[in-house]
C-alpha cells in the first residue's frame, strides 16, 4: 500500500515537506551511497520517533557545500539533522571547509572498516607496480599499499619516491569502473565497504581469481585500531609486522592512521548543533534502531555488520579522532597528497590548534 501511495504521490507531484517534522540534510544528490543510507536510517527512525523525516539533498563539489550550508545556515534549526560521511572527514583534514565536528553533538555514528582485495597474480609486497584506482576516497588505501610495498624505515620523501616506482595510481576511475576493471583483471587491487565487498569482490575471490589483501582495522576508544572480526588476521599493521618484523612507525604511518580514522571512523554520522533540544529524542529513536533486529537488518544490508556509537559514545569517538591530529601527521598527509597522489591539499594549522 505504501508503495502505491509513493507512486501516486510521485505522479501527482505531491511533496511531503509540508508534513515533515524532521529534515535530514544529505550533502549529495539522491541515489548516492550516503543518501541511500540516510533514507534507510530515516525510515527506521520514523517508526520510533513517530514523526516524519524528510531527506533534503544539497549537492555540490566533493559533498562539501551541503555540509557547509548546514553549518552556516541551518544548524540552529532544532529540526534539522546533518548526515555526513567519511569523505567529509577526509575533506575536513586537508581542504578549506567551513564545517567543524567539534561544534556539534553526535546523534550517532557508524565506525566502519574498508576491506581491500588483490588479484591472485599480484605481489602484495614487492614485484611489479600495483595498479589501484586513484581518488581522494582511496587515500588510506594508497598509503597502506605504499607502506606494505616499500617496507619500514623510510622518510616521507623516500616513501613518495617508492610510491611512484611501485604503485600505478590509475586516475579517472569511478566506483563502477573500478569494480569492473578489477573483475576483468585490469587492476591489481580494489576496495569496498563490507557489504559492497560481499556483493562485488567476494564472487571474484570465490572464482579463485583474487584474495583478501588487507583491511584498516576498527578504531577503538584509545585511538588504536583493532582487528575486524568479519575479516580477521589481515589488518594492515599485522601484515606490515609479519613482512618487516617491526611495527609501522613513521610519519607516513601517522598520516595513514589519521586519514583512515577520519574516513572510516565517521563513515556515516548524524549531527545536531550543540544544545539542540530534540537531541535526546533523536538519540532514543536511534538507540531503538540499533537494538531492534528488523532495523539492524535493514541498515546492515547497506553497510555490513558494524555497531553504532550513539549520543555521548559518538561524541567521545569524535574526540578520539581529534586527538589523532598532530602537526606531523597532518603535514605528512598534505605532503603525500600533493606530491605522491597529485591531489591538491592544504595544511590547516587551525586544526592542530583547536584539537
Amino acid at each position: 500500500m505504501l508503495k502505491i501511495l509513493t507512486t501516486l504521490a510521485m505522479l501527482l507531484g505531491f511533496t511531503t515537506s509540508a508534513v515533515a517534522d524532521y529534515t535530514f540534510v544529505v550533502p549529495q544528490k539522491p541515489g548516492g551511497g550516503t543518501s541511500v543510507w540516510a533514507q534507510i536510517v530515516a525510515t527506521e527512525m520514523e517508526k520510533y520517533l513517530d514523526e516524519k523525516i524528510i531527506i533534503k539533498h544539497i549537492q555540490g563539489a566533493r559533498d562539501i557545500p551541503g555540509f557547509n550550508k548546514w553549518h552556516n545556515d541551518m544548524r540552529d534549526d532544532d529540526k534539522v539533522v546533518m548526515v555526513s560521511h567519511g569523505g567529509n572527514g577526509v575533506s575536513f583534514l586537508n581542504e578549506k571547509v567551513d564545517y567543524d565536528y567539534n561544534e556539534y553533538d553526535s546523534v550517532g555514528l557508524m565506525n566502519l572498516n574498508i576491506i581491500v582485495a588483490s588479484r591472485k597474480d599480484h605481489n602484495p609486497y614487492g614485484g611489479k607496480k600495483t595498479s589501484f584506482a586513484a581518488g581522494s576516497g582511496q587515500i588510506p588505501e594508497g598509503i597502506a599499499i605504499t607502506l606494505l610495498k616499500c617496507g619500514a624505515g623510510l622518510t616521507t620523501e623516500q616513501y613518495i619516491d617508492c610510491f611512484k616506482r611501485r604503485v600505478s595510481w590509475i586516475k579517472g576511475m569511478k566506483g563502477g569502473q573500478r569494480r569492473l576493471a578489477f573483475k576483468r583483471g585490469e587492476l591489481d587491487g580494489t576496495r569496498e565497504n563490507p557489504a559492497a565487498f560481499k556483493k562485488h569482490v567476494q564472487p571474484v575471490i570465490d572464482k579463485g581469481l583474487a584474495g583478501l589483501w588487507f583491511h584498516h582495522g576498527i578504531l577503538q576508544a584509545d585511538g588504536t585500531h583493532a582487528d575486524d572480526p568479519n575479516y580477521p588476521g589481515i589488518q594492515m599493521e599485522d601484515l606490515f609486522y609479519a613482512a618487516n618484523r617491526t611495527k609501522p612507525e613513521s610519519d607516513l604511518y601517522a598520516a595513514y592512521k589519521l586519514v583512515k580514522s577520519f574516513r572510516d571512523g565517521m563513515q556515516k554520522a548524524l549531527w545536531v548543533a550543540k544544545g539542540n533540544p530534540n537531541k535526546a529524542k533523536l538519540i532514543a529513536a536511534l538507540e531503538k534502531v540499533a537494538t531492534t533486529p528488523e532495523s539492524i537488518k535493514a541498515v546492515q544490508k547497506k553497510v555490513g555488520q558494524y555497531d553504532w556509537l550513539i549520543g555521548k559514545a559518538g561524541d567521545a569517538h569524535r574526540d578520539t579522532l581529534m586527538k589523532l591530529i598532530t602537526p606531523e601527521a597532518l603535514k605528512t598527509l598534505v605532503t603525500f597528497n600533493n606530491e605522491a597522489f597529485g591531489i591538491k591539499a592544504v595544511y590547516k594549522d587551525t586544526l592542530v590548534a583547536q584539537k
Partner: protein
Amino acid sequence: MIEMIAALLGGVFYGLIIGIIPAAGATTGLIALFGFISYFVHEPYLGVIFLMAVVAASTTGDSFTAILLGIPGANSAAATMVDGFPLAQQGRAGYAISAAVTTSTVNGLIWGCLVFLLLPWYTNLILILGIPELWAFTVLALATVGFLSNKYWFRTILAIAFGIFIGLVGVNPENNEPRFTLGWFYLEDGVQIMAVAAGLFAIPELVKGLFTKTSTATGEIRKGELVAGMKAVWENRWLALRGGFIGAFIGLLPGLGGQMADWLAYGSAVAANPKEKFGNGNIKGVIGPEGANNSQKATSMITTVIFGIPGAKFAAILMSLFMYLNIELGTPDIAEDKELFTSMTFGFLGATVIVALICMFLIKPICKIASVPYKYYFPVLLALIIFTSMQYTGGWEDLAMLAIFSCLGFFCKHFMFSRPAMLIGYILADKVEGFTLQLLGIYTWETLITRPIFMVLIVCIIGILIFSITRKGRIDYA
C-alpha cells in the same frame, strides 16, 4: 504487482500526454521528470518501470500531432508527418493513425523482446571488453555522431567539442583542482544535466511550438478507418519490418538518434516504390518511418545499459535519471541486477501494448487533446521545466544556468549546430577523459595492438572518418 501496474499506467499516461503535446516528446518529457524522480528512491524499480513506460508511450503518442497538426510531438515523428498530415487533411486521420500505431506497436514488441529479454545475456559483454575497447567504443560514438548524423559536419564537430568542454567543467580528476569554473564554486560539481538538457532542447522546442502556425487537419475518425489502417500495415508488412530493422540498426550505433532512423526508413520506403508518389498522403510513407522509431528506442538501450554510452539523446537523459535511482548503467552491478531487467522489460513491453490499446479505443478523445491550442500547454510545460532545472540548489544559479543554456539552445537551433551531438559530447566527456587516463595508466602500445576488438574499433573509426569526408549527401539534422 499492483504497484508495478500503477507505475506502468502512470508512465503510459504521462508518456502519451507528453507525446501528444506538440513540440514535446520523450526527451522533454524525461527532462521534466528530474524534479520528481527522487520520489522513487525508495522503490527504484518502480521508477524504472515508470521511465520505460514514458519512453515507449511518448514514442507512439507523438504520431498523433505529426498526423493531425503537421508538427511532430518530437523530432522522431517528423518523417511520419510528410505523408501522415496530407492523409489527415484528406479526412483519413484514423487510417493514418491506425497504421502508425500498429506499425509502432509491432516493431516495439519485436525489438523490445529481442532487446530487453536478451539484455541479461548481452551484459556479459561488459566483462569481455576491457578499458581499451570501451575507450575506442566511446570515440566511435563521438565519430558516428560527428560525421554520420549531419551534413554540417564541421559545425557538429564544434558542437561535440563544446559539449565535451561543458562536461569537463568541474574538478580535474587528476589533481582535484577546479577546472574551467571561472572561480565560481557552483560549477565545481560540474554543469548539471538538468540545465544542459532543458536549455538545449526543452526550452527552444517549447518556444518554437508557441510560434509554429498549425493548420489543424480534421480529427474526424471515419467508420472502418482503424481496421483499414491495420490492414494497410499487413499488406505492407515487409516495409514495416524493414523500417523496424533500419531503426534497430541505427539504435545500435552509439550516439545516433531517432530522426536519422526515421528518415532512412522513409527514404527506403520511397526507394522501394519508385513508381509511387510520396508527400501527398501515401500510407507507405507513414508505415516505413513509424516502424523505425520504436525499434530504435529499444535497441539504443543496449549500448546505454551495457556500456553507459547513450544510444540517443533520450537515452542520455534516461541514464541520468537512473543515476538518481542509484542505478548506474554500464557497471558490473547491472549484470547481476535481475530486477532491473525485469522492470525494464515490463515497463517497455507493457507500455507498448497498453498505449496501442488506448490509442485504438480512445482515438477520438486523443484527437481532441491534440487539437487543444498549444498556448494552454505552454505555461504548464515551461513551469515544469523551470521547476526541474531548480532541483540542484534551488538558487538563482540554477536559473542562470538554464538561461545560459537556453540561449545556447536557440543559437544552436538557428545556426544548425547539432544539439544532440553537443549533449552526447557533454554526457561522454567524463568517459572520454576517464577511459583515456585509465588507458594511459594501464596499457602500452605494445599491449594495445594485441587486442583484436580494439583494433577493429579503431579501423571502424578511421573508416567513418574517410567515408564521411568523401561522402556528399548527408541528413539535414540539427
